């Protein structure tokens, strides 16, 4: 359906750097959160991996996390609310490095990421391994700000950005996929921006 009198105005969408369908490029870094920003001091922060029964098989403090082999990535990110931000620079610890530190393979094919503030999101291990997912602690060379998920957030940049859960505190492995917070409220289970998987059924 053509909307009378509507014309392309921006030059960035479909320009030299392609963005996924329905997205536009912003230089800003918008914030979306369902509630107040939690503020956890790094001294009180810890991170855990839990097996299918909910038992912790890996636990680390902030200092222990930063002692793991670092990963850096510069990548485009895509929010389901339509903005994309190009060339964002992150540093953290990869999902692979966490499992290596835990000394065992993934106990199941899915995880539920859980966070301060009660937020959860589900992910397939296949979307995290091989350098695809990390616990990010720095953005653009600086410690991650609380409103952007600091001290640490998940970063899974090839999926819509709600999957990159802010204020992450652990991953619980699952034998079967189950919806997290937004996924239970009508958003897509996987959220591949290139397939425009915004909502359930897309």
């Amino acid at each position, binding site marked *: *359906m*053509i*909307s*009378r*009198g*509507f*014309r*392309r*105005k*921006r030059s960035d*969408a*479909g320009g030299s750097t392609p963005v996924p369908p*329905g997205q*536009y490029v*912003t230089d*800003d*870094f*918008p*914030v*979306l*959160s*369902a*509630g*107040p*920003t*939690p503020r956890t001091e790094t001294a009180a922060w810890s991170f855990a991996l839990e097996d299918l029964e909910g038992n912790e098989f890996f636990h680390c403090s902030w200092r222990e996390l930063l002692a793991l082999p670092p990963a850096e990535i510069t990548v485009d990110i895509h929010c389901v*609310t*339509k903005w994309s931000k190009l060339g964002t620079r992150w540093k953290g610890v990869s999902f692979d490095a966490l499992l290596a530190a835990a000394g065992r393979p993934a106990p199941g094919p899915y995880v539920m990421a859980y966070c301060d*503030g*009660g937020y959860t999101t589900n992910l397939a291990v296949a979307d995290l391994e091989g350098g695809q997912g990390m616990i990010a602690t720095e953005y653009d060379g600086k410690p991650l700000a609380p*409103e952007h998920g600091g001290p640490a957030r998940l970063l899974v940049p090839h999926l819509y950005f709600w999957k990159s859960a802010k204020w992450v505190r652990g991953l619980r492995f699952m034998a079967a996929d189950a*919806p997290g*917070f*937004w*996924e*239970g*409220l*009508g958003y897509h*289970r996987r959220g591949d921006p290139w397939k425009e998987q*915004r*909502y*359930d*059924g*897309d």
Partner: protein
Amino acid sequence: MTAIEAAVLATLRPTVTTPPRLAWREAEILDVVDETPTARSLVLAVADWPGHLPGQHVDVRLTAEDGYQAQRSYSIASPPERRELTLTIERIDDGEVSPYLAGEARRGDRFELRGPIGGYFTWTVEAGGPLQLIAGGSGLVPLMAMLRHRALAGRQVAARALVSSRSADAILYRAELDALATGDTRLSIVQTLTREAPPNWSGERRRIDAGMLRAHTFPPAERPRIFVCGPTPFVEAVASALVGLGHAPDRVWTERFGPTGRTP
């Protein structure tokens, strides 16, 4: 649960079978209402609209003659009780979609939308109160759907709204807000202006801070349901102050929009 809520939840809840795609629907502009010098409401007839909850939003998709498409999200301003769907759009001058919807578009024009979207930042009278609304600029739009719904659903729930705008002429729905508060002993609405105020202004005259929240919002002991919507710095400041005053974080629902640097 009302029939509307049941219908909306049925479309939002994931099921074991593959759910249907949230369909694009044809919207026709029935009326345009200039709310402020930069904001306009579009009253829409939407084919087969499934109903919504106050606080939800829609995705709008515009298509140009050359096939170019652009999508944006806009909050719904109308209550579920109304058959027509109303969106209020703030014009962002260097934007692509808002100058069209809040400028070029006129009665009879058509575009596509799908929704309702967002099942968290919602409130109905069945959820109970007290209801505390805190808006910055056009963050008032989804909160207006809640106030309009409350007015049509019996005005029983105690409610307060604290509305921050740049200047008096930037206040959205000003006459309607005044009318809603008149004669409703369970509703109070306080306005604050952050940049300029007319000489006879009787409201507040600064950005919302902890002192203003203490003076004009329900105290933590009353366990209000608090909905905060506005630009990111506004919501960050207000939500942090509310938690600082002793409100439980899970009683504070937030919706942020726009660039990080803009202030109301």
